[in-house]
């Protein structure tokens, strides 16, 4: 649905997007992840035909953004970082205006407006002036505006920025519900968001793509070493010396690091990391049991996207 090849955007003094290539399949939700100023917005602006690229091509819904911008614009819905609202308009009036702008026929317009108002939960404020709306409502009106013409591709620039936690949850659920019918690209610098909404993630830093993969693969790929959390309890009424247990765990072959965590009642907790490429779960369990203690907990710790992100963008910086 979206195919970007060798896309660059240069300004007089800096490079905003540097030779970026990626592809998005139909119906997918892709997260654009990167720190502020990484080039997410610029890439999105090129995809929406707002900015022309300096080099490279971008194909959206089967049309080239440079050669057939009208066709592309007909098939995209775009929510910029600040929703493009007219404060002096009523919500309903605004949605009608956008609908006409997007080329919805006069006969379809009322139905489309009530549809999106319903879907984005702004039906109750249709008669309200936009400048009287709360931030959460504005964001939803912005989203309604983006999907009013039922576009093939939806491009959302930081759709949850500036919302309170409840609104964030609602907006995420709404975006998720839009998948399937629409191919969605959304940008964010909030990691859990990608984890929650997206199937695919493109990590971008300083204008370059540093990784592109599914959320699942990405965390796995970067996790060379295993890391686990275990809980150890003494058998019977005996007590345990944390330093002693730690020492014993460090002796297990393949364990590179043992970090004690806060203990609960009588249970001692530890974070263990293995040497690169070693599996330690079995050995650790055996060692605990053989020492006469109970192993009450053992769970793998998935590397969070946050760590993946820091790892990727961190190495990138090291090369500079």
């Amino acid at each position, binding site marked *: 649905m979206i195919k970007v090849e060798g896309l660059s955007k240069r300004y007089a003094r800096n490079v905003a997007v540097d030779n970026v290539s990626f592809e998005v399949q139909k119906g997918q939700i892709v997260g654009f992840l990167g720190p502020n100023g990484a080039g997410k917005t610029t890439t999105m602006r090129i995809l929406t035909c*707002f900015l022309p690229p300096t080099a490279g091509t971008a194909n959206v819904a089967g049309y080239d953004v440079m050669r057939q911008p009208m066709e592309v614009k*007909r098939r995209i819905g775009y929510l910029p970082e600040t929703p493009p*609202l007219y404060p*002096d308009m009523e919500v309903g009036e605004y949605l009608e205006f956008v609908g006409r*702008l997007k*080329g919805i026929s006069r006969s379809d317009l009322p139905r489309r407006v009530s549809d999106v108002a319903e879907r984005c939960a702004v039906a109750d404020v249709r008669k309200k002036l936009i400048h009287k709306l709360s931030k959460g409502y504005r964001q939803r009106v912005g989203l309604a505006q983006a999907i009013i013409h039922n576009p093939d591709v939806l491009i959302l620039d930081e759709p949850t920025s500036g919302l309170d936690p409840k609104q964030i949850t609602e907006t995420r659920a709404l975006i998720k519900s839009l998948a399937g019918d629409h191919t969605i690209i959304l940008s964010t610098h909030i990691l859990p968001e990608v984890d929650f909404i997206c199937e695919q993630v493109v990590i971008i830093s300083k204008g370059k793509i540093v990784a592109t993969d599914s959320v699942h693969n990405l965390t796995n790929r970067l996790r060379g070493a295993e890391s686990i959390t275990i809980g150890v309890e003494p058998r019977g009424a005996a007590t345990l010396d944390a330093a002693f247990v730690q020492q014993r765990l460090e002796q297990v072959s393949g364990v590179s690091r043992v970090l004690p965590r806060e203990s609960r009642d009588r249970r001692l907790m530890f974070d263990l990391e293995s040497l690169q490429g070693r599996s330690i779960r079995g050995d650790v369990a055996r060692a605990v049991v053989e020492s006469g203690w109970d192993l009450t907990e053992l769970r793998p710790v998935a590397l969070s996207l946050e760590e993946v992100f820091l790892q990727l963008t961190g190495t990138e910086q090291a090369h500079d």
Partner: protein
Amino acid sequence: MTNILTIYRKELNSYFNSPIAYMVMALFGLLAGYFFYVYVAIFVDRSSQSQMMGGQSFPMDVNEWVIRQLLSNLSVIGLFMIPMLTMRLFAEEKRSGTIELLTTSPVRDMEIILGKWLAALTLYASVLAISGFSVGTLFLYGNPDVAPILTGYLGLLLQGGSLLAIGTFISTLTRNQIIAAFATFAVSLLLWVLDWVSAYETAAWAKVIGYMSVITHFEPFAKGVIDSKDVIFYLSLIFFGLFMTARSMESLRWRA
């Protein structure tokens, strides 16, 4: 065409949803009314003097003494009013980010520009129409020539259209409405007084500069003369302003 209409309606609504339209109409009505009153009063005074002298002194002509003067004054008021009508056209969209909505919608730049310009022109025309009430009362008490009145208003519309086109262009250059308004005012004023050079200089360059003055081309309309060279002058100024607006919108994308 539909797109132009969509933009046009939105712009017109936003003039009337904000105090701009009402304020401009009310204050213009006040000024136009005052000028009208003064010219009628002078005319009445002169005509009674003329009667005392047995109608010998000079021919009394309502068109010459009231309407033509009034139209000239209205064109000066337009100079002050036009920057207020055009300042927000693009500056506001740029500041609030709604320009991104317009330029990522399947609408051509020229359709956006024409919609906005036509909306400003419509407001300008309706403001001018207010002065029509005063002019209309003249028909109750005398019988002025209709033709020079109509050509005069046509001239005002053409002149207003030109300055509105230039104001639209200037509004694309900034995000700040005050800058847009003041720059438009300065350029309009300059275009106004360009013919002053012809007061002391008769060389060819001075003639060319004088020719570019918007006032030189308005005078014939006020006298009831439609000269194609004046019409073409205004139309090309309108075309030039809108063309520059389109170029500027395009360059926004390359620079943004």
